């Protein structure tokens, strides 16, 4: 049995898109294989270790994100930078993705600084980009289809320090222009996909767990296959919904 330690950052502030669903999936998929997840919830003001196996940042309402942005820079940014360099896994979703980049410029020009874990920068657009999303992710050898839902006003563009997390097949992605979705540097991932992300994408969940176990143990830990029939059905239903609605 191995234990994966995850820092869930700001669960009280950044939780608007059912982020705890992602944590539940990580926990159960470890437990079903005889491992365990140790969740360390960290709020405003507290410092964090730089050696956790995983860090999770969700999305919040605008007011909460402003509170979090200041705290992230002062009490957590340094540890997160060291953790990314050391191969810890970071999953930052929606608002958390924007904060993990360089920052967010609002419609009125105000700037909310991010912490630059990802080479991504975000500017508010004139409309919200909302709807089902299907992307192809190529970080695991074979291409992986990932489904989710997006709802963001920000348009994100990537610099050379990050690669896109995925390629948009349906939906808007980073900026509705260049066909990219999300950003990745080392094992730090930012994405607009919620739904939540992991329940309907079990292969992605296992990819992240494999990385986290590798960080925890210093070796590759094989993950036993699970009965994912329901997960695959839900995944297929989400893709069928995109086709029915014809949203692209």
């Amino acid at each position: 049995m191995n234990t994966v330690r995850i820092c869930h950052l700001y669960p009280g502030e950044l939780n608007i898109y059912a982020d705890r669903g992602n944590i539940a999936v990580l926990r159960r998929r470890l437990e079903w294989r005889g491992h365990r997840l140790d969740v360390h919830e960290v709020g405003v003001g507290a410092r964090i270790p730089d050696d956790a196996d995983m860090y999770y940042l969700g999305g919040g309402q605008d007011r909460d994100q402003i509170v979090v942005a200041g705290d992230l820079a002062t009490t957590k940014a340094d540890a997160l930078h060291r953790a990314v360099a050391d191969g810890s896994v970071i999953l930052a979703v929606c608002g958390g993705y924007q904060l993990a980049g360089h920052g967010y410029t609002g419609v009125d020009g105000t700037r909310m600084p991010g912490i630059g874990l990802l080479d991504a920068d975000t500017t508010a657009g004139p409309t919200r980009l909302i709807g089902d999303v299907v992307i192809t992710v190529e970080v695991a050898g074979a291409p992986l289809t990932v489904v989710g839902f997006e709802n963001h006003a920000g348009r994100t563009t990537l610099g050379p320090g990050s690669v896109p997390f995925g390629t948009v097949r349906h939906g808007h992605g980073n900026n509705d222009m260049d066909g990219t979705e999300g950003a990745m540097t080392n094992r730090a991932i930012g994405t607009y996909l919620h739904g939540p992300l992991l329940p309907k994408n079990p292969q992605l969940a296992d990819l992240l767990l494999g990385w986290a176990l590798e960080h925890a143990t210093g070796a590759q830990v094989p993950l036993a296959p699970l009965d994912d029939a329901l997960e695959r059905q839900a995944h297929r239903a989400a893709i069928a919904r995109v086709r029915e609605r014809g949203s692209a």
Partner: protein
Amino acid sequence: MTIVPRGPSLVLARGIGALSRGLGRGGGTSVPGRVLLRLRPQAIQELGGGLPRGSLVISATNGKTTTARLIGSCVAATGWRTVSNRAGANLVFGVATALLDGDATRPKPEFGLFEVDEFALPEVVARLAPRVVVLMNLFRDQLDRYGELEAIADSWARMIARLPTSTTLVLNADDPAVAALADDAHPRLFFGIEDPTTALDALPHAADSIRCRVCAHPLEYARVTLGHMGSWRCANCGAARPVLDVAARRVTLSGTTGLDLELSTPVGDISAHIALPGVHNAYNATAATAAAIALGIDRATIGPALASAEAAFGRAERVSVAGREVVLLLAKNPAGANVTVQTVLLDPAPLHLLIALNDRTADGKDVSWIWDVDYEPLIERLGDLVVSGDRAYDMALRFVYAGLDRGRIRIEPDPARALDAALAHLPEDRPLYVLPTYTAMLGLRSILVERGVASAYWDHG
């Protein structure tokens, strides 16, 4: 733009509405109003302004329809002839259609009672200039359509700043975002629940307004009753839950069938048995009492009128199907679903559940909210679970990751088959609790209507 004179506008809009209903094309609740406002943009002001007893508008994320029904019962008991919109037709066009239809009845209505969508509220209120505005709660709901809570609260604050000073505000003191809407310009009544036995152990996960509206500092709660509602204060700026004008001093929940309420009010104490279950209906009845008092309705009328009100369409509505009882409990967002889960848990026997999740426009296309609902306490109380709807597999996964054995979940995306599957496993003396999203509720209800066990949409007031 040409403005058509009033008389011809009404006749034309009515004619087109009759045509639309006659063709069975649906839209009977919005098309006439849409036509009317196209021909005569000031029609709501004119028809609403012509009601001698004025109007009342109610809005909330949860509880609009039931509370409008409870207020309607009080108003009917007073004898006022009332025009109201139908549940679901709660945008500007729905209100216009109701006024248009009301204007054609003889004798003409005296009073307007309208439940209005949170987003459409500022426009409806600006046109109607109601006597009373009832604001009950703001919860996370359909984020894909509406953006976030703060934006709605801000739009309500701007709306109130423009209201005539003669309008009375009826505000939920227990919801920090709603209580903060009070200003010095308008008369107001604060309502809330004072009974400490209604307290939850902790803030539910889905709690929304946990920061102060004034200074953004995290709020402290002496007591939480539902979602983020309860007895709150801000240690930083001193903002706190206002003193209640209409207070539910005692709330006694009687299982899944009803509740007893003892209220303190400015006009004296009121007691009532409400034939609707759960603490959310205690809020609805308390809000309705405050609204009735704001309208000047006699104290002695209110209790019996609340007691005689029946469940609204799909909201704790009970239907008998082949000798079995089916209870429809609309559950369309985290706060509503949480309180529905808490309500069915009041039934001590093993629970037979049909949970139906759709993701159509009226439901919200983003189904991530189900992960914010605390379904976990249901697992050890479960007799049988059928999941249904467009996103049945998402709901099944929610229970799998809550810890329910995969083999115990029966999945029937088709609603008629799901209903049959659930009824087939239902013991004779047990009710089936159906927890549908909005369009899933409409779908299941139309199946019940086809089977002759529920009354059709048009029969429902």
